[in-house]
């Protein structure tokens, strides 16, 4: 059973989004996603300053099995990236919603939840995936 915290929003492509309340959001991949990928061995984070449209492929996580794109959940500009993942990509496996965050976006709009799924809706996505 994968962990789906109630205080986060989600995408159908298995990113999670945390509203930081200051016009920025933090983005990572869900527990379900890290479990499906298996042991992660490489993360390519976006460049700070990159301007992204929602659903732009902007980062890559690679597991022992395969490479997967990470998509921007919302429109915005990358303001911070998790450089610790360079040396410890496995952090995403062990703490996907905490130390395993991938990047932070400064939103172009003012709705940090626009078009995103709540925990219940994402739970449905995971069940349909199985």
């Amino acid at each position, binding site marked *: 059973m994968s962990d789906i915290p109630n205080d986060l929003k989600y995408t159908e492509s298995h990113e999670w989004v945390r509203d930081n309340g200051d016009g920025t959001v933090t983005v990572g991949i869900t527990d379900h996603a890290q479990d499906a990928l*298996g042991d992660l061995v*490489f993360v*390519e984070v976006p460049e700070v300053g990159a301007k992204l449209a929602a659903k732009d492929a902007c980062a*890559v996580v*690679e597991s*022992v099995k395969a490479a997967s794109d990470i998509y921007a959940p919302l429109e915005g500009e990358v303001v911070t990236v998790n450089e610790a993942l360079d040396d410890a990509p496995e952090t995403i496996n062990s703490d996907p919603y905490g130390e395993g965050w991938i990047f932070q976006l400064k939103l172009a709009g003012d709705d940090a939840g626009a078009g995103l799924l709540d925990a219940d809706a994402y739970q449905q996505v995971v069940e349909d995936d199985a």
Partner: protein
Amino acid sequence: MGSRTPLYDAHVGLGAKIVPFGGWDMPLHYGSQLDEHHAVRRSAGVFDVSHMQPVDVTGPAAKPYLQYLLANDVNKLPEPGRALYSCMLNERAGVVDDLICYYLGPERYRPVVNAATADKDLAWMQDRAAGFDVSVTRRDDLAMLAVQGPSARSLAEPLLPASIRAAAMALKPFHAVEGDAWLVGRTGYTGEDGFEIILPAADAGTLWQGLLDAGVTPCGLGARDTLRLEAGMNLYGQDMDEDTDPLSAGLGWTVAWQPPERNFVGRKALEARREAADLPRFVGLLLTGRGVLRAHQQVLRDGAPVGEITSGGFSPTLERSIALARVDATTAEGKADEIAVEIRGKAVPARIVKPPFVRNGQPKIAL
């Protein structure tokens, strides 16, 4: 749903992630592929490889038949209890499959072929048997476990039938001993010491559980793939197939050209191929830039494509990305560090190296 080995329920009980592989439902890992990989390099791991297909070749013409069927020569096996790695070629010198052939006794051999190709292989072997006084029998009553790692043989020892225990422990690499319907070979697909054990399906559960109780780590197909890649061993269907000759897949050493009068399937085409000016080379790659090498990525030299990766991934032992690749001869003979691999549209620097990457727990290439 795919076929299931006698150990399927045991895998599920251990929480394995089950994936389809070659028509079978097999364990990919039991939690962490990386941990399983390290267990084999440092101690011992056990793989259920019962999807592999043993085939018994028996009868007065067993030896001449195999000398015709296989590119390697079973005449290299001077007495029973020896094993030989070989390719089985088609008339175009493409690889129908690769296999290990055990010499069991007078007029008795046991090739073990790949799961995904088993049906095709059996049909191919039956067709080639015409005119030979030989029986080709699929052995679906057997299971197969590979126990691999520096501690593998000593941990397996008490679980072997008493009648062959001492003989099994005295085996040299690529030797095997048979008894009580078990076949124990000192062979493997990981670059570590260990046994491959072919045994009656009914005995598999007891051996599996006994190994786990002895502290051997259950390992899935994921670790099997990273271990064999580090060991520089080819995977059928990825590094070679029916359209690839063994010389282009780094398997020239498995082709027995002597004696010249031995006519094996594909020999004529392979002889022509050997003289071809455009014969590619099979090399190892170490990624010196950032990323992960994967099958089908292009190898670049001065920005131009000169070959393709056939197997690639992350090496848990080296903590770097490595690959096997087919490149043109000029590139293979050129400066090893002047190449790159195209990863998501970018040329990432890499270096040509000579496999194996890892053997017996130790790095074999300079990083």
